[in-house]
């Protein structure tokens, strides 16, 4: 039975997508194309969009902001989480910052980012992505650092391992699973965050384009942009999964 299910996984997936499209089509007929454009209408909008240079430009701009905000969070969050995991006093020092970033609602950061950075070049969007992703990187790396195998760390101490060897052969293999889990959560939040942030704080990018579509009641465009965000989120999660598989295989 299990083999049968595994063999037919792809078939189940296709059936699921087919049912989703049928429901979408029925909803469109029931509520009308103005409220819910049909799948065909949406595909037509997409077909038109892909011939427009601005469509690709908006995607590229959002991707740039998303990737930059995410990498800044990883770049700062990783050493900070590591340091906090190693030293209790450092954890205590940064704890208020961590609580603040974890508990402040995203909408507060949206408004603050907009007020602090203004609209235009997307600095506010980058800041918002950074601030919503960084606590997940910090917490996961900190947890990974706290879980370091103390017997192995004692061994490293006895054999006077130089820092480079310690980082490459002791810290990275042990902390990596925690780090990649943080990155996975962070990447999911990035594409949700980028659209939200651009909607309020930018004049370019996917979120800004969705804002324009909302004002013009172009619901098909909203659906197309949402689909693009889903693809970006799914693509980055696949990329991270691959990275995880390659390295955990090496370090398991």
């Amino acid at each position, binding site marked *: 039975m299990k083999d049968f299910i595994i063999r037919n996984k792809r078939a189940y997936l296709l059936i699921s997508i087919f049912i989703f499209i049928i429901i979408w089509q029925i909803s469109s007929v029931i509520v009308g194309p103005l409220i819910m454009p049909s799948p065909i209408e949406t595909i037509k909008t997409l077909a038109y969009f892909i011939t427009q240079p601005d469509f690709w430009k908006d995607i590229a701009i959002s991707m740039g902001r998303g990737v930059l905000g995410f990498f800044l969070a990883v770049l700062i969050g990783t050493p900070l989480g590591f340091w906090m995991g190693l030293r209790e006093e450092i954890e205590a020092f940064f704890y208020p910052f961590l609580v603040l970033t974890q508990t402040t609602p995203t909408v507060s950061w949206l408004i603050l980012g907009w007020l602090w950075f203004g609209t235009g070049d997307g600095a506010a969007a980058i800041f918002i992505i950074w601030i919503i992703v960084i606590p997940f990187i910090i917490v996961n790396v900190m947890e990974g650092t706290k879980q370091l195998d103390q017997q192995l760390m004692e061994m490293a101490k*006895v054999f006077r391992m130089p820092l480079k060897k310690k980082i490459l052969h002791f810290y990275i293999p042990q902390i990596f699973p925690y780090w990649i889990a943080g990155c996975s959560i962070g990447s999911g939040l990035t594409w949700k965050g980028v659209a939200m942030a651009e909607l309020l704080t930018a004049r370019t990018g996917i979120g800004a384009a969705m804002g324009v579509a909302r004002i013009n009641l172009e619901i098909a465009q909203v659906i197309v942009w949402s689909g693009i965000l889903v693809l970006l989120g799914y693509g980055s999660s696949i990329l991270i999964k691959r990275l995880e598989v390659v390295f955990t295989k090496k370090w398991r």
Partner: protein
Amino acid sequence: MLILNHVTKEYDDVMVLKDFSFSIEKGKIYSILGPSGCGKTTILRLIAELEKPDKGQIELRGQKVSYVFQEPRLLPWETVRKNLELVCPKKESKKIEQLLELMELKEYSDAYPKELSGGMKQRVSIMRGFLYPHDILLMDEPFQALDLKLKAKLIREIYSLHQSMGNTILFVTHDLDEALLLGDEIIILSPKPTSIVKRFTIDASQKERGLENMQSIKEDMTKILNHASI
């Protein structure tokens, strides 16, 4: 050459070492015997600077310390060879090959620790202890996971390695025979707070003649150990 000077060490209000002193000479093997929990491992950990004494000093005088832990403590994500290379200065591959052969692990050099048996892992750990450049080698019950035949072979090999290297070995064990076969001197400890009950010197000729010729020392040691309620 190594001196523990009035060392006191306490864990959670339990006094393990109280005003404990002892000294050892360069180039000898010291077997340390004592009841469970008497602080044998603590002494090694203090010498390896994994713990700090609450009182007293440990005088290492710049000597480098290597350690064979009770558990193999190998990096699971590195091969046997890499685990050994990590503690070696560069260009020691010839020495690694020699030791792999000696420990009968040559065909496992590219295996990962999870592919080895407990005894094999422990042998890698012993090799690592010898490969790390040191003056003093601390060994904490290193033969626990090994069968009798391999244990006897390893004791012989360790003794000959020690003779060629001239290192000092501090060897903690529960086993009287192991202590007698390897040690130039045997130190018997009391239950905690630990003190030295007696030191026996075993000369090289006695060791060469084997365990059968050390029966009287063994009997003396057994009496002392029984008296020390081990």
